[in-house]
């Protein structure tokens, strides 16, 4: 599976092959420093906002007596149903001057706060009530209890999700480019499109790879530090803080109304302005392309993920482990950079395949393999080792074991994993934009092109369809039935 690393190697080769003077010129240009500054500023601002908002929401719904907590919990995850570039489109549709840092900050903060919310509220919900009880016999103040129990238990979740948000900001392409805020991804795309020599794009791509790797390493350090004893037998107390709730509910409602409400209202408004018949046939074409790519790529990714999970759980097969780790690194990289690297590979090594359906599907598989792994692995692990041993002792052959024991148990989980991966792929924008065959458009690329051209009415049906499709996994997550979160294997 180290095949997934090939694009990165090519990216490096592309840079080393270029005239060192050109590379240096690109690195030392004032605009590169500017890009670095822009990206860093956006990253810090969005991460800080998402942490404050997401953690506050998590605390409010798990530890206070605030009214409508259940509704608030669902509302807090609502932005997951709106991909950030769709939200950007929504804002622009109402207010065409909504561009630059402030716009990018707001849209990305809204999109990423649910990441923090889900992680922190899960860790708060896992904290047993007895821990808080013991703390209450030692300390009188709420602050003291939080210092002794609450903060240490959620610390890892807070910093970990903060790093995920930072990765998300670096990787985001659709929102920042629609909102015309210059970060690395937007600059890479412009450099890629506008010049014949793609050295600039490659150099910027390498910088992003380095920055991402640093964040990924930091994240793995954090997860390794986590120390928990899971002996919780009673759910945590819900009434730690009495919040009568008017200001709190108002603040949370305002955030949700502005963050998710404005884009959705905008999409609705534009949708009601009417869609032409030509528009509908184009929409169906794009929908079909989206569904076809998603279905095929999800099927391949799921199949590969099943093979890798079985290889890893059954035998600790080393190449499978290496492949899994590598694929996570690729996943953390901006899809745009992966796409860029893949175009280099495509043009150099397999020019015949470049910009074919097969090539883009391969790209999607590489990109979304980790999603498939995360969803499939827990399902595979629901079959305990002892079952296969029992099956063996009953005289079943390995194929009979798989067919009669493993498959019936994992089938529902695998089906759910497939659907989830397919729905995530439908939202994908940058890789599809770069690798799609000429003349093919998906929902995402259509929306992007039309919005860039200022054709808001034409974009609306695409935005609407995307929100509906993206809403399905978001709804599952908010109900807590997302297979990715069912990790308690026996």
């Amino acid at each position, binding site marked *: 599976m180290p095949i997934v690393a090939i694009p990165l190697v090519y990216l490096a080769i592309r840079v080393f092959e270029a005239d060192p003077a050109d590379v240096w010129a690109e690195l030392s240009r004032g605009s590169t420093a500017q890009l670095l500054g822009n990206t860093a500023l956006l990253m810090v601002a969005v991460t800080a906002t998402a942490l404050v908002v997401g953690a506050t929401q998590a605390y409010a719904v798990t530890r206070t007596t605030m009214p409508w907590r259940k509704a608030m919990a669902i509302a807090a995850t609502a932005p997951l149903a709106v991909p950030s570039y769709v939200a950007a489109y929504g804002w622009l549709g109402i207010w065409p001057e909504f561009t630059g840092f402030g716009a990018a900050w707001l849209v990305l903060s809204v999109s990423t706060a649910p990441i923090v919310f889900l992680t922190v509220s899960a860790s708060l919900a896992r904290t047993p009530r007895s821990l808080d009880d013991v703390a209450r016999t*030692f300390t009188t103040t709420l602050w003291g209890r939080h210092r002794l129990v609450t903060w240490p238990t959620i610390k890892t979740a807070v910093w970990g999700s903060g790093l995920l948000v930072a990765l998300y900001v670096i990787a985001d392409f659709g929102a920042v480019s629609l909102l015309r805020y210059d970060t690395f991804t937007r600059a890479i795309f412009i450099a890629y499109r506008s010049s014949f020599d793609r050295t600039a794009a490659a150099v910027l791509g390498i910088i992003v790879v380095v920055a991402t790797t640093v964040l990924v390493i930091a994240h793995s350090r954090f997860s390794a530090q986590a120390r928990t004893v899971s002996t919780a037998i009673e759910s945590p107390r819900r009434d730690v803080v009495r919040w009568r709730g008017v200001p709190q509910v108002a603040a949370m409602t305002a955030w949700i109304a502005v963050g998710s409400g404005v884009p959705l209202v905008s999409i609705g408004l534009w949708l009601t302005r009417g869609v032409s018949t030509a528009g509908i046939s184009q929409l169906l074409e794009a929908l079909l392309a989206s569904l076809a790519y998603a279905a095929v790529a999800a099927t391949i990714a799921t199949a590969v993920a099943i093979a890798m999970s079985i290889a890893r759980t059954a035998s600790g097969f080393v190449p499978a482990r290496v492949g899994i780790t590598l694929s996570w690194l690729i996943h953390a990289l901006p899809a745009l950079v992966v796409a860029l690297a893949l175009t280099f590979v495509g043009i150099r090594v397999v020019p015949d395949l470049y910009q074919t359906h097969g090539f883009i599907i391969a790209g999607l598989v590489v990109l979304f393999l980790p999603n498939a792994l995360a969803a499939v692995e827990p399902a595979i692990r629901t079959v305990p080792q002892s079952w296969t041993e029992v099956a063996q002792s009953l005289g079943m052959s390995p194929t009979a074991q798989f067919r009669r024991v493993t498959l019936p148990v994992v089938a529902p989980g695998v089906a759910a994993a497939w659907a989830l991966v397919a729905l995530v792929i439908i939202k994908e924008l940058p890789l599809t934009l770069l690798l799609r065959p000429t003349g093919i458009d998906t929902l995402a690329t259509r929306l992007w092109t039309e919005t860039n051209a200022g054709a808001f009415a034409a974009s609306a049906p695409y935005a609407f369809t995307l929100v509906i499709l993206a809403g399905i996994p978001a709804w599952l997550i908010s109900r807590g039935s997302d297979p990715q979160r069912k990790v308690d294997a026996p």
Partner: protein
Amino acid sequence: MTVVLGLDTVGMNRGDKSIVHDITLDVREGELVSILGPSGVGKTTVLRCIAGFERPDAGAITIDNVVVASSTEWVEPAYRRVGIVPQDAALFSHMTVEANVAAGLSSMPAVQRRERVAELLSLMRLDGLGSRYPVELSGGQQQRVAVARAVAPSPRVLLLDEPFSALDTELRTELRADVRALLAAEKITAVLVTHDQEEALSLSDRVAVMREGTIVQSGSPLDIYSHPADIDIALFLGDAVIVPGHIDGGKIVTDVGSLTPLNSVREGDAGFAAIRPENFYLQPDPAGQSVVTDRQYFGHDVVVTVATPHRTITARASGPLAPEIGMKLTVWVRGSVNFYAN
């Protein structure tokens, strides 16, 4: 002996439903009192009210004659000088064992604190584990740390919420003995909540039996076991064969013979006698009318099932002398038994 902990007609509701009511209990200096009852009976609620995690809706709780909870008074858990050992240990997983034990000692000077922690680790037989993290400990060790942590600040009342229930038999016996020794060494007053009759009877100075949200009987273990207030308590505290009978001439007349009542009875009353398995004496007798139908061997003793002419009884016999299956017997009841009038 002075009363350390007092509960006076404590009650608590959740919504319209009464969880516990009319709980009255005094715990004296240095005593270990068990609250015994099946699960869901409200034992833990009583403990949580004492700790201050819940506020009772009725009655009052005093610690050292200071009212800590009533309709007008309220003292926060941290000011009550109570220690708690929850069922799941609830160790702070981000702290070492030493730091966990020191968690309630923040106002103590550092040198003294270190000494106190070392002393408790040694009393709980945790020497050498001070710098470990909770994940690196076994379940039994985690419970030991939880006990040491709760005892470290020298609480007036130590509350134990089924702390031994998750452990296997051998560990449980060991830990019970060590906790008992620790309480004696530290002269600590304690309340233990448990559903395990054996644990309550063997460990406590006094037992309070709870049923349907209130205490139905309290007394010394011997007292409780030999004088259960009613048939349900008798059955809850241990096996018993319930036999109908009536009082005639100061004796309980039943189909297993004429028995001596242990409690006071009224002439002519009809009711039931509760006979403990160890009250039966099985005399081998080829002409006997009873037959052994089953036996379960436990090593130190044997539980024998015997079909008598009118009913099937279970009796306890000492291991080597127990009758074999199929043996004919005459069944006697020795000692006195409790009689409960209808």
